[in-house]
């Protein structure tokens, strides 16, 4: 004990000295010239004497540039998606047959918990932050985020958060948390049989707390940025749809996440210091459910609204028309944001709360279907009679709409108390929310990555591989999650490593589980293709010399981030691209869809850059 203390003290001492030494080496912090107002107030491409950032690893460790931080978020999110995906592949393999053949049920529970938390907090919020960090300042014409350093802090809280959340798996002597992502008390308070009293759960809670702090800092930053940093010609009236959804999402985060943080601290106190917030003889376990879902339901919209904004952004670009009913899409976003705080008890219909309370929560939950449907109809109408170009980002957007219809309608069913009493805690619920978290958030993440790939990399991805990725993901998603809806109807409860009920000779439960596993493998194969495509095209894809690879000028939709991209290309014209034998730029531009003339719908964000840089000097697509 005493030895450990000494060792720890030494370790911390060494760490502090090392940090100080490092800082004094790279920072001359006695000579700062004070820059009032947080610094960074100079114009983007001015010939300012100081360079933008150092090179190498130090650049990435010290950057406060919103684009770099966006890239960091994106890399982080793809890594966590891979890890969360591997976890679930083990679980789906285990579920191929009814018995516990591959892993023990405790391991299954640990994987289940980590999968959920990883995907929601370590993948979902960060991948959205990746897009918003990179593009919101560009889209609204800001130099950077309002608080660039806080932006960097928010990102750097995430890696320690992930390590703590996964600590139970790799720190010897610890058990991973098996509380499920909802962390219901009394189980998560470590009482009762006490299987959840270990430090693995505490570390997981701390990690979750950190990711919450990170999300809150990011949200404050986005609110400040969108309110105060807009360019002169970017008014509330012509603010684009993606910024609106990020603004709404940030508002939801601001009200929801601090509550989660407090609830987690209360739970930690219950676990470690003998308070009784969630004890039966104290505040009661149901208090946890109220606090958790008051955060938890807004959280699902935190993960849904920005991807919905991406649909509204990308869909018109490949439909050749502006977004139908722009105002109503904004209103529905705001309406969902407000209503989402009034529905949390629909997760608690079976807990025995007062039936009158249940009734009112059912009413509000059903009401939220209205703004959701408004969005769907607006999207469909946008495509109606448009010149649809089925590029990879467009395919993912259209697929998302169909997924959202299924996910949304199953949600409406669940919001009806009598239906929920039957389906609660079955695979039906799992199917419902995966149609949204995978079918909307996952799909739109891919759509965004493809749509902006030329901006990230200056190159084009391989369109054939992208289409393989889409179709594998789409078919896999339907197989996996529709099978789950059916499993729910058959009464298969969620969160079990084993199942043991035959219904007649054909064993439909086993069969459906196998279908779900098959679908999961298709999704995984698609993702491997995606990563390969991404990495390879990044280094070897054809360099794009046209500032408008999607032919957005034709339909007056050449938005600010592309104009910025165009300007950047012109200021850094370096070594020209490679082969330009074919010079057939339209093949990029459409990624396989047909090229059409503008139908001149007059987009809201029309602001065409002056010159058309139409040199046919473009490289060929890479399929070969």
């Amino acid at each position: 004990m005493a030895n450990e203390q000494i060792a720890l003290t030494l370790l911390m001492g060494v760490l502090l000295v090392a940090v100080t030494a490092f800082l004094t080496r790279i920072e001359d912090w006695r000579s700062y010239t004070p820059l009032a107002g947080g610094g960074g107030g100079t114009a983007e491409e001015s010939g300012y004497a100081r360079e933008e950032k150092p090179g190498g690893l130090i650049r990435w460790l010290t950057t406060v540039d919103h684009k770099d931080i966006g890239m960091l978020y994106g890399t982080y999110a793809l890594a966590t998606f891979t890890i969360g995906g591997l976890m679930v592949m083990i679980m789906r393999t285990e579920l191929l047959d009814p018995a516990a053949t591959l892993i023990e049920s405790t391991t299954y529970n640990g994987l289940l918990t980590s999968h959920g938390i990883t995907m929601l907090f370590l993948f979902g919020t960060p991948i959205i932050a990746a897009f918003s960090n990179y593009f919101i300042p560009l889209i609204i014409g800001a130099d950077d985020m309002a608080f660039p350093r806080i932006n960097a802090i928010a990102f750097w809280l995430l890696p320690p958060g992930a390590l703590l959340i996964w600590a139970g798996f790799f720190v010897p002597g610890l058990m991973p948390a098996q509380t499920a992502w909802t962390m219901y008390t009394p189980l998560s308070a470590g009482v009762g049989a006490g299987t959840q009293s270990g430090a693995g759960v505490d570390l997981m809670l701390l990690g979750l707390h950190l990711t919450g702090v990170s999300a809150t800092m990011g949200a404050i930053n986005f609110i400040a940025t969108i309110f105060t940093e807009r360019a002169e010609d970017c008014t509330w009236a012509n603010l684009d749809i993606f910024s609106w959804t990020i603004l709404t999402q940030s508002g939801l985060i601001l009200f929801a996440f601090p509550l989660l943080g407090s609830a987690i601290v209360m739970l930690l106190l219950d676990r470690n210091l003998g308070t009784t917030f969630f004890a039966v003889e104290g505040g009661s376990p149901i208090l946890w459910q109220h606090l958790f879902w008051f955060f938890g339901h807004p959280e699902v919209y935190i993960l849904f609204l920005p991807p919905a904004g991406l649909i509204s952004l990308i869909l018109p670009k490949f439909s050749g028309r502006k977004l139908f009913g722009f105002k109503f899409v904004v209103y529905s976003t705001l309406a969902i944001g407000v209503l989402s705080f009034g529905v949390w008890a629909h997760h608690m219909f079976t807990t025995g709360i007062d039936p009158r309370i249940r009734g009112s929560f059912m009413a509000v939950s059903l009401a939220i279907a209205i703004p959701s449907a408004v969005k769907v109809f607006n999207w469909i109408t946008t495509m109606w009679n448009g010149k649809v170009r089925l590029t990879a980002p467009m395919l993912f957007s259209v697929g998302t709409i169909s997924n959202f219809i299924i996910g949304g309608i199953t949600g409406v069913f669940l919001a009806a108390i009598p239906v929920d009493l039957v389906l609660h805690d079955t695979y039906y619920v799992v199917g419902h929310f995966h149609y949204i978290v995978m079918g909307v958030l996952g799909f739109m993440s891919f759509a965004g990555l493809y749509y902006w790939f030329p901006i990230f990399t200056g190159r084009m991805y391989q369109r054939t591989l992208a289409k393989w990725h889409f179709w594998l993901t789409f078919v896999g998603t339907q197989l996996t999650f529709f099978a789950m809806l059916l499993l729910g109807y058959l009464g298969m409860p969620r969160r079990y490593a084993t199942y043991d009920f035959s219904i007649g000779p054909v064993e439909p439960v086993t069969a459906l589980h196998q279908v779900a596993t098959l679908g999961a493998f298709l999704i995984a194969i698609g993702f491997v293709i995606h990563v390969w495509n991404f990495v390879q095209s990044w280094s070897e894809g054809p360099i794009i010399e046209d500032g408008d690879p999607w032919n957005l000028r034709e339909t007056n939709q050449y938005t600010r981030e592309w104009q910025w991209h165009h300007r950047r290309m012109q200021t850094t014209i370096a070594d020209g691209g490679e082969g330009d034998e074919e010079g057939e730029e339209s093949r990029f531009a459409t990624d396989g869809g047909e090229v059409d003339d503008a139908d001149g719908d007059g987009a809201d964000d029309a602001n065409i850059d002056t010159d058309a840089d139409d040199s046919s000097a473009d490289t060929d697509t890479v399929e070969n």
Partner: protein
Amino acid sequence: MDEQPGLSEQYRRASAWPLFVALGLPLAEIGVLFGLVPVAVGGLLLFVGSIAGITQESGYVERPWNLLAGLGGVLLVLGAVLALSQIPFSAGALTAALASNGLVVRGVSIVIAGFVAIGVGGVGRFVEPQSV
């Protein structure tokens, strides 16, 4: 400018502090939660130190020392309140409680961090003028 400018002097879009703010907070949380005195003290120091540094770097304060000492004072008060809430006010009771009462251990570790921060802040203030 100085003949050897620091990182964030030289590069407009770089800062060394965010990484360490983000490292200090988890260490402090782990240390305080599990009652690991060295980790708590070190983590808190890293955290308040980096806050003082980043605040100065962004120009909200001119020198970091007063802020560092001030944050140390906040820690001191918080830790003392936590520890003293558990025991009657006497040194003997304190040492006895250190062995038995986890809250007192945590409170005292916060107090130590506060002391050190005040110390460094104070020393920095007075030593600095000669070294610049």
